[in-house]
Structures are given as structure tokens and as C-alpha cells.
């Protein structure tokens, strides 16, 4: 059910944005929009399906903690 809602939301976003881009013949803008939306959609879908996605904050935590070890504050 969530996935169906999610797909409808995506279709809504595409229908909202694409007509203006086509009318203005902004092909590069459309490519960027579709690329970013596709990536965002995929990420969201994987999260809904509860697939393990690498967490960038984990890397930030480890890096800062490494410096804590080097320089004890």
C-alpha cells in the first residue's frame, strides 16, 4: 500500500514538473530532474522495502571519533 502511494506521489511530481520543462525545451534541466528524481525514488523505495543502505553519518561518526582518539580532549 505504501509502495503504491509512493509511486503515485512520484507520478504526481513528474507530471507537475515535466510539462514546463518540455514547453521551455529545457532538455538538460529535464535530464537532471529525471536523474535526481530517479535516484531519490530508488533510495526511498529501498528504505520502504527495509533494505540496508550504508549510512553516511556512521562514516562521519567514525572519522570524528578517530580524531578524538588521536587528540584526547
Amino acid at each position, binding site marked *: 500500500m505504501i509502495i503504491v502511494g509512493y509511486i503515485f506521489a512520484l507520478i504526481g511530481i513528474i507530471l*507537475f514538473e515535466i510539462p514546463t*520543462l518540455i514547453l521551455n525545451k529545457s532538455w538538460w534541466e529535464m535530464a*537532471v530532474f529525471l536523474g535526481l528524481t530517479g*535516484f531519490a525514488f530508488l533510495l526511498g523505495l529501498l528504505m520502504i522495502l527495509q533494505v540496508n543502505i550504508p549510512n553516511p553519518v556512521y562514516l562521519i561518526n567514525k572519522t570524528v571519533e578517530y580524531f578524538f582518539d588521536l587528540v584526547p580532549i
Partner: protein
Amino acid sequence: MKLEGGKIPANQLVFLIIGFIYGTVVIINPGRAAGNDAWLAFIVSMLVGLCFAAIYVILAQRFQTKNLLEINDLVFGPYLGKLISLVYLWYFFHLGAIVLRNFGDFLAGIIFPETPISVFLITMVLICASAVRNGIEVIGRTSIILTIITTIILVLTSLLSIPLMDFNNLLPILQTTKLKEFLTTVLISATFPFGETVVFLMIFSTVNNPKKLKLTTLIAFLFGGGLLLIQAIRNIAVLGTLMDIYTYPSYTAVRAVNIFEVITRIEILVVINFLTMGFIKVTVLYYAVSLGTAQLLKLKSYLPVVLPIGILMICLSLLQFESSFENSYFTYTIYPFYALPFQIFLPLLTLLVAIIRGKKGVPG
């Protein structure tokens, strides 16, 4: 190429900065490590924050019509400049996701415990996306109304809390807090919220009178810092040493207000403050990321990237912390050190390289 044609007057920038500074601090207390000396730590951190802001303003005035990304390109050249711009965009994007998560954690954890956090994140991003798509002029005008409402609410809740206040809670000064804890609080408060104003390097170029930037920023920092100070004193005076154990001390302090059993449960006013100021903070960051991404990818307009960036921001804010405790650990322990390079080292480096290379923006 200019992606944003809008201009904002200096007075709107004042309200925008105040709203941004007050943003998340409405509910989260960056001064918890300093205990009853948090108010003093805020004053010191405001002075440190002013030093940060001085670098941003000098940089902005040197390159009057250029925003941060254009400055990076001019100072470091097209390749290194773009790499540094990308790093900044990540920081703004991540900061937006953190603020969004704080917003969601608070609403889903305290106000609507049965509602999934994603509902609040999606709603907030949709409202912010609308503001971002309307441009900086609309954001600036909105900030005036919202900041005035927030200030009135803060003063009102503080006045209503007076019967609960015990000003002895502010004493003894600098005796119970160790120097290390005090300095840690100063660092936390300087990076969050004052140092975060580095994002305004994306907005300073839209101010119609760049000569007023110094005065504008000074007024905004003093006023924003003043609001934080009032809030800190109220929370310490009402909650005393208990303040450190609450995740959301402002909410708890105002919740205790009871005037003759008539004026009670006014903590919703704190929630209103957080909604409005959280909106301003997320919108400014969201705007900066959208504008920056469009600029980096050489788009004719930033509108096509607004909604996808919003979805990505929601994804990151959900993904980054498994619980509000992780969020708390990151905010108080990791974030100040993570944010420092973006808030002080990179802007300072940019300014030094610009001075050494004699780079300046051409007014126009």
C-alpha cells in the same frame, strides 16, 4: 548567469538570520553540558559566533554580487572551486536533514507519539519546497512575520513563567561547571546555531545594499543571541539542575506554567515557535542546496531540482539516526567537530587565498 533574480532588503535579512539562529534551539538546548552556567556560555559563544560571522561578512563584501559557489570558483579556480562547493553543498544538505530530523523526532516523540515520523518530514518538506520555489523574496517576507510571532511568544511564555522562576538556580556562577565543560558548551553553541550562518554566504549576494551587511549581521546576532539568552535564563530558573536531563527543556519549562488554573498547558506555544523557526531554518538550507546544485550543474533554473532534493533530504533524515538518542549523541558530541571545517576553516582559507591572490568581485 544568475539563477535567482530576487533581491531582499537588509531588514528582511535581519529577520531571516534571527529566525535561522533561533531555529532548532527553540527546543534543543546546546548549553546542557554547562548546567546552570549555560546562559554565560551562550554569551561567550555569541561573541565567538560574531567572529565567525565577521569572516563571512568580509568575504561577502569583498565579492559583493557573488554567492559562495561563485566565490569558490573565483578564488580556487574552476576545478578545486567546484570540489569545495560540492563539500559545502553536502554540509548544507546534511544540516537540513538534521534539522528536519530534530523536527520529526520532537513531533513524533512528544506531541503525536502514534504518528509515523515520515508524515511530519513529508509535510514539512512540502511546505518548505513551496517557499523555496517562490524564491528568496518570499522567504524573506515570510521570515518577518514568523520571527515577530516567535519573539512575542517567547517573551509571553517567559513572563508567564516568572512565578515558577527561582533565580538562585543561576548561582553559583562558574563554580559548579568545570572549565572543560564550559568550553565544550561554548564550542557547541558557537557551531550550533551561530556558525551555521555560513549558509548565508549563499544569500548575502541577494541583499540589495551589501554595504549594510556588517550592521545587519551584528543586529541579527545580538537579537538572536538575546532570544537564546532569555530562553536559557528562563529554562535554568524554572528547571534548575533538572534542565540537563530533559531533551526538550523549553517544552518542559513552559509546560509547568499554571496561572490560577486558568492559563495552563501553554507548551503548545513552544511547538508553534519550533514549527515556524524550524520552517525558516530548513527553508534557508533547502534554498541554498537547490540554488547551489542548479549552479553547479549549470541549469537555467533551480526549480527542477527542488522536489528531488526534498525527497533526498527526507531519505537522509530518516536514514541517518536509528533513534532520537543517536541524534542526541551526534548533535552534542560529533556535530561541533564535524561542522568546524565548514564553518571556520574553509571560509577562513577562502578569505586568506582571496587576499593573497588579490581576488575581488566586480560590483554589478
